[in-house]
């Protein structure tokens, strides 16, 4: 790799919510509360919805990137928990870290642009990444100061909408099998069910249905978040890996936050890339690299997580 190709990149993203987003910070009773951060504004302290950099990093980059490598290298079903944790969650120190194996780090950085980008923790050493992830900042008046510092160009002069207008509610119910007790074992109930016209029995006599109502807050459909990635002194391969991950995340549904199983958190992302950046060329180069180093990459992964001789399990 020539040093001529080393440069820094800033990728800005605008993500518009296409469905209610439930990136939660906790629960109050049976109501979930969305993730907020305190922001000091000219009008005092305000609580503003935010997407954590941790969630963005995992869902947009690490997870799709790891899934791609596993698929491309045909590793499904062949990895240990430690290897999976390393690829999907960054790994954990499980051995003494008094010595660092520079050769192993160098090999990893040469073989895995994705891991060079994100870093990770091998059993005995922590490897820094080269990508800083910006938090998801809601485009709202309370965040004007922060956005005007982060964003290229200028914000509109007119006031932005206040954060409170982007927060909504949802409510769902979770059913109870008592409502469909036709399928219960008769001896357990001690009665003989008499199906109604629709083939079901409404209630077990003397028992109440425990239909559960659960509710929470959402960030409304049509809200806009700014987030982004800062890549410090990286090669085009890392930039290609980043764009490739974002593309795969987008193709797989582009969701952030919880409850995507019921349609929450769908995003439409747009990118603002640095000058001279060709996404097609960068991603193609990354894919070509992944394929070119297949054997060495799999060997490295197995070697880095091999059980050392004499080590107790």
């Amino acid at each position, binding site marked *: 790799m020539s040093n001529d190709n080393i440069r820094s990149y800033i990728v800005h993203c605008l993500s518009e919510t296409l469905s209610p987003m439930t990136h939660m910070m906790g629960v109050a009773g049976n109501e979930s509360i969305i993730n907020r951060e305190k922001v000091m504004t000219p009008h005092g302290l305000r609580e503003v919805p935010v997407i954590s950099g941790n969630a963005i990093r995992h869902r947009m980059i690490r997870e799709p990137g790891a899934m791609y490598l596993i698929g491309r290298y045909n590793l499904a079903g062949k990895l240990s928990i430690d290897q999976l944790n390393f690829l999907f969650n960054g790994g954990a120190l499980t051995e003494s870290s008094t010595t660092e194996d520079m050769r192993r780090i160098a090999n990893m950085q040469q073989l895995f642009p994705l891991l060079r980008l994100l870093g990770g923790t091998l059993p005995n050493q922590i490897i820094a990444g080269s990508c800083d992830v910006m938090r998801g900042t809601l485009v709202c008046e309370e965040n004007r100061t922060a956005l005007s510092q982060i964003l290229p160009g200028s914000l509109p002069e*007119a006031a932005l909408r206040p954060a409170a207008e982007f927060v909504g509610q949802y409510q769902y119910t979770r059913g109870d099998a008592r409502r469909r007790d036709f399928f219960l074992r008769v001896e357990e109930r001690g009665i003989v069910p008499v199906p109604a016209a629709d083939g079901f029995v409404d209630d077990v006599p003397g028992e109440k249905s425990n239909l559960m109502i659960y509710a929470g807050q959402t960030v409304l459909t049509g809200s806009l978040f700014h987030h982004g990635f800062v890549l410090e002194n990286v090669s085009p391969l890392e930039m290609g890996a980043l764009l490739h991950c974002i593309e795969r995340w987008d193709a797989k549904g582009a969701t952030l936050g919880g409850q995507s199983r019921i349609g929450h958190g769908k995003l439409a992302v747009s990118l603002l890339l640095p000058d001279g950046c060709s996404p097609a060329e960068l991603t193609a180069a990354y894919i070509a690299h992944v394929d070119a180093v297949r054997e060495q990459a799999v060997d490295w992964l197995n070697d880095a997580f091999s059980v050392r001789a004499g080590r107790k399990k």
Partner: protein
Amino acid sequence: MSIPVLSPEEFRQKLAGYADPTRTIPPEDLAQILQAAVRFVSILASLFGGDLDRLKIWDRIGTGLVVAVTKAGGDFDTFVNCCLAHIKSDPGKVASSAPLAELLAQLESQPAEWRTQFLRLVESRHYLILVKARARWISYRDKVLEAL
């Protein structure tokens, strides 16, 4: 690449779409809008349907505000209609209500942003508006206030 890549100008325009022209309403106008909302709700009390339980008049008006603002989807006329329907107002009384006609005329003469802000206040502060509207209604009932 399947993801849209924006130019700096497109990026700026996307942000501009999140500006809110109604925010140019000065604070003194906001106080007026709140006052109009309070007046509207106190007028609703005078048009409360005879078929409903008068002991629950403020419960019913309160739920009416929430339901109407949701159903209206930002349309002021629909909001007014839904409120009146929810409290089962008598059409004859509605048609002959001078305070209502006067308030509607006043609101219609204001810019669209004004009415949007009206609905926003009802949505975000309906409890506060109920408290003030009830106090206003009692003042009127006790002849402290001459007209609604």
